[in-house]
């Protein structure tokens, strides 16, 4: 008996993963789109302006989910890079590589929307405070991961190097999260992820959570499509890919 369940073992074979990822990606994509339509409706139309910040607070519905995702994707990326490195599972390394560009995008969006929210509220686009600086470092970690991956030709060597980079970078995640408590920052503290009671009104919490789940499903759908590409490229000389392509061109 192996400690890895049978279905997971089967799924980790590139051929099965490729097929599973294709249909799962479609499902997640439609879920993301539905959640996003609802989130945009509640966020832009059916929610009140903030009593202090007015309509500028609506930036929150894209800024906060993007920032949450920037950290979530990083942890997933580092985890699957480690699993891919230790057990030499191609599908897992593919998931890590596929996560990097999506995570980098969410990080860039969190930074840019934060700047666009900071200008009218703080009077400046940028300050070098702990929250903003640690989030910028996160963007560099993603970009460094992608650069390192494309710089090393051999797949297993690349998987090792990128996994180590990703794992070292995990230190940054709690720093980002607790930066608003550990240092005196301009950035406000958390209002939703507080242990006692979230200090945000339900009319604003609903669009926020809808957008957060929309972004999560968008990531899942996107990352599976990208992982398919990675596997296709690595396995292009294997029988299953030749059958797949041969079957298509024979139609």
């Amino acid at each position: 008996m192996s400690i890895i369940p049978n279905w997971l073992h089967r799924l980790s074979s590139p051929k099965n993963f490729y097929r599973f990822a294709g249909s799962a990606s479609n499902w997640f994509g439609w879920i993301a789109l539905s959640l996003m339509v609802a989130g945009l409706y509640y966020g832009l139309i059916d929610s009140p302006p903030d009593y202090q910040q007015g309509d500028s607070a609506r930036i929150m519905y894209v800024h906060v989910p993007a920032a949450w995702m920037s950290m979530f994707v990083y942890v997933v990326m580092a985890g699957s890079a480690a699993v891919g490195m230790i057990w030499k599972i191609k599908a897992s390394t593919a998931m890590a590589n596929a996560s990097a560009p999506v995570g980098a995008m969410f990080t860039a969006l969190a930074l840019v929307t934060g700047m666009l929210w900071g200008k009218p509220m703080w009077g400046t686009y940028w300050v070098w405070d702990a929250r903003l600086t640690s989030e910028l470092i996160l963007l560099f970690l993603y970009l460094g991961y992608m650069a390192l991956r494309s710089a090393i030709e051999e797949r297993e060597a690349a998987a090792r190097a990128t996994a180590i980079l990703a794992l070292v970078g995990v230190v940054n995640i709690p720093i980002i999260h607790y930066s608003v408590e550990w240092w005196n920052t301009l950035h406000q503290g958390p209002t939703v992820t507080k242990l006692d009671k979230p200090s945000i009104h339900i009319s604003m919490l609903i669009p926020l959570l809808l957008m957060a789940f929309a972004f999560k499903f968008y990531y899942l759908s996107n990352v599976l499509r990208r992982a398919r590409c990675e596997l296709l490229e690595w396995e292009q000389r294997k029988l299953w890919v030749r059958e797949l392509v041969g079957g298509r061109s024979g139609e």
Partner: protein
Amino acid sequence: MSEFFHMGGYAFYVWTSYALVAVFMLLNWIQPGVRERRLLRDIARRLERGER
């Protein structure tokens, strides 16, 4: 309706944010589709030439 686009005077900041999110997410979505189609085409060509 014009009040909606006005966003209480924050129109530039709100709409630029949402537009950037839309553009980034759309481009990031299209990219793997293009890459997969190109990969499948290249592999198919190689197979047609009889290479392995």
